[in-house]
């Protein structure tokens, strides 16, 4: 194949032909979920907070495919809106944590010495805190709002992203071609942008997937505890909490959002696994 004409289109075509059936299914599911989330107001049969019946936990019917929730709202519509908020929050959180974590990680790796030492020590100190405790303490002082939620979880995630980004970048910084660039007189910024970043892109993409999954699970857990997204807004975690009672009425309302979270997370993990295996890239040993 002619290298000059090798565009991202060819790359994409090749990647698609590499998909195993299982992975293809997961990717398809992820795409579907993202489309559903993005188009929620168009797709959802009813409004998010629309009360349609006076009966809690009505069984599924032609009018409401998944029945009604504890306030008589349509479960399917709320599920669609819940997916939207959950994905949106996870995306913003992961994006922010990567912006900060990768910048700091590359900074530490590029400069080394006391800069690296200080940032890494501080980061290690933050890691001595269990994630949930950190979140609970912040929410206790600031109250729970979407902004607090996003920045708290993004901060916690950043400490993890930093370690991975730094470890990856340090490995590249000792390569001969970086030394050559230094000898040529290139600046730190040029080296990070042109040498380090392209070489760590695949493992970083995989890490993005892992962090995205983690953000979904973490926000859902907080919402489940009643400390994340606050009603009347609702993500999937809030829906699980709200409808726990349904089990006692013999309805599975609370299982739908819980299984939804699990399916999104599983698909993402399978996709990341495939990505790592295909490029035979490896994430540094971090948890």
């Amino acid at each position: 194949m002619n290298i000059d004409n090798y565009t991202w289109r060819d790359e994409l075509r090749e990647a698609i032909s590499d998909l195993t059936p299982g992975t293809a299914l997961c990717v398809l599911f992820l795409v579907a979920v993202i489309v559903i989330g993005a188009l929620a107001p168009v797709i959802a049969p009813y409004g998010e907070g629309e009360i349609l019946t006076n009966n809690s936990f009505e069984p599924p019917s032609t009018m409401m495919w998944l029945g009604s929730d504890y306030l008589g709202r349509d479960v399917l519509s709320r599920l669609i809106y819940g997916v939207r908020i959950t994905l949106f929050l996870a995306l913003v959180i992961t994006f922010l944590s990567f912006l900060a974590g990768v910048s700091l990680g590359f900074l530490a790796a590029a400069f080394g010495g006391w800069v690296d030492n200080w940032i890494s020590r501080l980061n290690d100190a933050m890691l001595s805190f269990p994630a949930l405790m950190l979140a609970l303490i912040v929410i206790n002082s600031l109250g729970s709002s979407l902004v607090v939620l996003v920045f708290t979880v993004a901060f916690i995630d950043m400490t993890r992203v930093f370690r991975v980004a730094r470890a990856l970048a340090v490995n590249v910084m000792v390569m001969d071609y970086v030394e050559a660039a230094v000898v040529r007189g290139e600046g730190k910024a040029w080296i990070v942008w042109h040498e380090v970043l392209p070489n760590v892109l695949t493992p970083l993409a995989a890490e993005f997937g892992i962090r995205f999954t983690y953000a979904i699970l973490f926000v859902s857990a907080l919402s489940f505890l009643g400390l994340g997204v606050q009603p009347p807004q609702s993500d999937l975690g809030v829906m699980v909490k709200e409808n726990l009672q349904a089990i006692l009425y013999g309805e599975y309302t609370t299982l739908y959002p819980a299984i939804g979270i699990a399916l999104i997370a599983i698909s993402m993990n399978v996709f990341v696994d495939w990505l790592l295996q295909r490029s035979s890239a490896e994430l540094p040993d971090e948890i």
Partner: protein
Amino acid sequence: MSLLEILGKRLILGAATLLFVSVLVFLGTEILPGDVAHAILGQGATPELVQQIRERLGLNEPLHMRYLVWLGNFLSGDFGTSLANGADIGTEIARRSKNTIILASCTAVIAVPLSVLLGLAAAVKPGGMVDRAISSTSLALISFPDFLVAVVLVTVFAVELRWLPAIASIRPSYDLLDWIRVLILPVTGLTFTILAHMVRMTRSAVLNVLASPAIEMALLKGVPRRRLLLRHALPNALGPIINVVALNLAYLISGVVVIETLFNFPGLGRYMVEAVTNRDVPIVQTCAMIFCSFYVLLNMTADILSIVANPRVRYKK
């Protein structure tokens, strides 16, 4: 450097970490002192009343003095009283931590041997049927939110079959049999929250060791597979496995909080969540300190055990 020196250094580092954690817990919860007074008074907050409360709680003292007083009280076991109802926090903590310790240790006793065995079984023949079954199941389990397995368990065993209680309230009159009935579902749910991570990490730790030249040597010598695993690989993998176990017991913290809330179990986790909801600062501080100390101690124990288990760690750095 002698082993003793390394251990001493690690202990000092652990103590420093604990101190840092206490500063952060204190700052994180006290950074908005106005809110504490307002939180107590709610709607009826007049400037005079706020001033009175601040006086009573010592909020007018400088920050570092308050920190020292707080730390001193905490270390001497005086946790103060709840802002919400004035109850003594120490008594409540004593009662609830007993329940949480029972829940967590039952889970650890089941989850640790089970996951180490499963991890070993998967590592025996990487890519084989057993490995693929265990690896893909654990990959799926990792993606489950902490509450999913527990909710399914409740649906099946408490609601459909009516074998076990859906709510794990504890009465003083409970004998051993009642305790077991109450604990089965929470313990199973909690086990699933830590099992998958532990299985996956044990597997990769053992595979790492199996890739070492020493194992290749043993293989070439003609050591049978079973003996190779148990006599040659396992002792070398012990350090990493201990690390894995300790790290994952730390996952118990978030698991305990979610599972206790789900089952209405009267433990420390639910106590803390309720306190955060009510902004009951002294309770949040105390619970956070207990959970964080547990976490720091666990990490320290893991490091120390792997130093003791593997003398080569001594020569690193």
